């Protein structure tokens, strides 16, 4: 049982490039989330999903897109990378809603230059 896995661990992008951050969970959780963590700040919710085919915006969705075609996977897409998207990105999952315990992946550290 690997829990929540994220790839890659680190990535450097140039301005305007695109990339997809991968997230997978093997706990059969319905809910999945993407957060970003900026230095000295708490986590902010980017997008979340309550099940396959259903996604919704969080607090800071601009510049990102998500899809959820399976229960296990919840990729986060950056279409036109900007320096403001330099951050650490965490994926999480939970059995039920936002009150439930969320299990976090190890994070992806992204730098946009």
């Amino acid at each position, binding site marked *: 049982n690997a829990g*929540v896995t994220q790839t890659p661990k680190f990535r450097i992008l140039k301005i305007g490039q695109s990339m997809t951050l991968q997230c997978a969970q093997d706990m059969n959780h319905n809910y999945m989330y993407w957060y970003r963590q900026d230095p000295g700040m708490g986590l902010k919710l980017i997008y979340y999903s309550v099940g396959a085919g259903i996604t919704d915006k969080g607090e800071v969705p601009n510049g990102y897109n998500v899809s959820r075609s399976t229960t296990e996977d919840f990729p986060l897409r950056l279409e036109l990378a900007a320096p403001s998207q330099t951050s650490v990105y965490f994926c999480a999952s939970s059995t039920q809603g936002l009150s439930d315990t969320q299990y976090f992946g190890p994070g992806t550290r992204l730098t946009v230059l």
Partner: protein
Amino acid sequence: AQSVTQPDIHITVSEGASLELRCNYSYGATPYLFWYVQSPGQGLQLLLKYFSGDTLVQGIKGFEAEFKRSQSSFNLRKPSVHWSDAAEYFCAARAGGSQGNLIFGKGTKLSVKP
């Protein structure tokens, strides 16, 4: 606006000493409250949570937190700190009974002196 405040950015305690990390929230009604710990280079791990009932909540790793409605606080405590407790601690809250987002505080970094 809903918010979570952790007044202390960085705290240093000696190993074996007691610990209290402060958390205050601003919500219209009592929110669901959480404490998470983040070790260096790791994701967040839930320490404990409070929804209702007994205001003293026990968590993992010997941590506890007390909900005080009158002070809008949910402070985290540990009677005797171990070197392995050095990490960053985040308080979080969300509105009860709805699909409101989790709102995180900015975190408190804990250093432990030998």
